[in-house]
């Protein structure tokens, strides 16, 4: 994944994986995904794609289209290789805990 400048770091004591969460500020499932990561004190980087503009939006949008052609959110990228689309508590638990 390219080094996207718009990603914001969220600190956490669990740093077992490199996590990047592409989210929308309007999306309830994205809120649940962020709550899961926060509740389990997991470090991750994220961006609200719908709040970006111009070149930043183009850059991130291109990346999301490659990872998830349907462009649904949240899209979680684990260690630059595993892509989890949508939020499901048991899937996140299995992959991250």
């Amino acid at each position, binding site marked *: 994944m390219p080094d996207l400048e718009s990603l914001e770091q969220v600190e956490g004591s669990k740093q077992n994986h490199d996590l990047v969460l592409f989210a929308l500020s309007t999306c309830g499932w994205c809120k649940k995904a962020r709550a899961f990561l926060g509740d389990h004190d997991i470090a991750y980087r994220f961006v609200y794609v719908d709040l970006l503009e111009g070149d930043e939006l183009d850059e991130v949008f291109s990346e999301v289209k490659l990872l998830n052609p349907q462009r649904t959110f949240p899209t979680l990228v684990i260690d630059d290789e595993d892509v989890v689309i*949508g939020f499901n508590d048991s899937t996140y638990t299995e992959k991250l805990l």
Partner: protein
Amino acid sequence: MTAEVAPGEVEKLFGRLVQEAEAGAYHVNPDMSNTMPLIEGLITNTRRYGYRLCPCRLTGGSRQADLDIVCPCDYRDADLDEYDTCF
């Protein structure tokens, strides 16, 4: 930044969505922890774009490009089949 969504607006849209859903033999998700954020997202997107863009899908830049993802979107039935709720 979009203005905060007022409780009255949420209730009004909730009522309308219940009516629309039941008329089509669908049901609004009774789990309010899912439904309320969805409604707030729909209100925010209606203000932002002028139509009920799905809060969990990214705009293609125009109403024409977004026709398939205006709520209720083209993917509703597939989502219901797979997840029992829309995604």
